[in-house]
């Protein structure tokens, strides 16, 4: 237990110490929120979908949780490069504890980041349907963070060096984001897009967040809140097991 705790704490300390990185990581969500949120607003409204700013805010929150959780898992590559990974892997501790500590730590920082972005959204004019919506949205953030932190660990365990990083970024992380419906409604799409977006786990996370954050009058869930929860928990559990398996196979 203490091993999991200390590795969790390590991730948290590293996060809170990299102040400039925290500020920098707010840049992209802000850009999407403000530029797209206001830029596409008039078109969205004319199409009869209501406020685009309200619509995109949960998407931007989901995006920031996705990015920080998957990168926390990929931080494994950094630790491999700067050697700290070895220090943990030759210690007399079961690997599974190391993996759990890292994954929980990474998800915690992703959740903190998500809360920070939520705050920024509210400051910029986002209005959740009710006060109770926030803790419910937090629940979805937790599920998204765990799922993608585990995916990050699985990928980080499989890559040998930083060369694969761009590949993962362009062919996995960005598609997960763009296909999640973070920026556009998933309803009334063509067959292909409907099919592909349904394969993206983040779609369910963002759909879930919207279903709790937005009022029923302005947003109809694409999948339904219960389906969202079930998919996130199911896929998350599979990825945690897969991540732990890949982590156990790392050669020092």
């Amino acid at each position, binding site marked *: 237990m*203490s*091993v999991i*705790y*200390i*590795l969790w704490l*390590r991730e948290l*300390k*590293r996060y809170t*110490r*990299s102040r400039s990185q925290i500020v920098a990581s707010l840049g992209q969500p802000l850009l999407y929120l403000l530029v797209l949120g206001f830029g596409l607003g008039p078109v969205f409204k004319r199409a009869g979908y209501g406020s685009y700013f309200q619509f995109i805010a949960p998407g931007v929150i989901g995006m920031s949780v996705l990015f920080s959780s998957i990168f926390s898992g990929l931080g494994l590559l950094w630790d*491999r*490069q*700067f*050697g*700290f*990974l*070895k*220090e*943990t892997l*030759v*210690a*007399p*501790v079961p690997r599974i504890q190391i993996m759990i500590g890292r994954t929980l730590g990474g998800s915690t920082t992703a959740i903190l980041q998500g809360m920070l972005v939520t705050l920024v959204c509210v400051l910029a004019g986002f209005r959740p349907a009710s006060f109770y919506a926030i803790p419910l949205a937090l629940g979805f953030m937790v599920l998204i963070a765990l799922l993608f932190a585990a995916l990050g660990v699985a990928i980080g365990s499989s890559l*040998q*060096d*930083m060369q694969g990083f761009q590949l993962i970024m362009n062919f996995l992380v960005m598609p997960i984001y763009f296909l999640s419906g973070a920026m556009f409604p998933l309803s009334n799409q063509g067959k292909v897009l409907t099919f592909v977006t349904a394969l993206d786990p983040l779609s369910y996370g963002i759909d879930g967040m919207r279903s709790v954050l937005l009022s029923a009058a302005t947003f109809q869930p694409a999948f339904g809140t219960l389906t969202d929860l079930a998919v996130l928990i199911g896929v998350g559990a599979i990825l945690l097991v897969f991540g732990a398996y890949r982590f156990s196979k790392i050669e*020092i």
Partner: protein
Amino acid sequence: MIYARNLVKTFGAVTAVNDVSFEVAPGEIFAFLGPNGAGKTTTIKMLTTMLKPTSGAIELDGLDPQKKQNEARKRFGIVFQDPSLDGDLTAAENMEIHGVLYHVPRKQRHHRTEELLKLFELWDRRGDQVKKFSGGMKRRLEIARGFLHTPKILFLDEPTLGLDPQSRNQLWNHVKKVNEAEGVTVFLTTHYMDEADRVAHRIGVIDHGKLVAQGTPSAIKEQTGTVTLEDAFLALTGSTIRDESAGSADQMRQFARMWSGGKR
């Protein structure tokens, strides 16, 4: 304390370690010398549970490191060729994580951290982030950390690589101090022959995966009829330069160095 018999490790068609046998007595400082690619690191990896030998037997304090992995790991400390500290954390925090990973009880952990950081002259800097440390300080911290869980054996894989003579000298003085005070067995590799000559009680020379000489520094000099250990080493291993092909780890190290602006 360390016992290796007929150790063999092959990677495909390449035999990295070929029938190596040696013994290191408790409390002894043993230097394992050899040119690049001779099989030093492979041997250390096999001794420290990181690699499974193709054949042969190993005992660390009476334990087979492959069968009783975690038990064996509690009994040794290791300082790798490459740094393995977390630069974003402070010296004290790096020690704390190590203590928890090795199940050192809290009170003992704090007491021992203070004792070791004072000995290695890092106590005043315990609250500073490790990335602000000089190369010598980082190495000292890693060695202090290796001693934290009071291991019976400490493995040091080229710990003085890239350090100036002052730092090297100071580092070995510290290692010798702990060796004498606590009776820790030390197994080290280095490319600096003067260090091995000064620090080690006994030396093993490995070349092309085979142990070519073993004994006290003076015995090895006598055996080769040379004055310095450096000459003895060259007499034993020849003077051709070994070109080690850069493995992925080396390439990564290179990349890390580039990326951190040569600060590592």
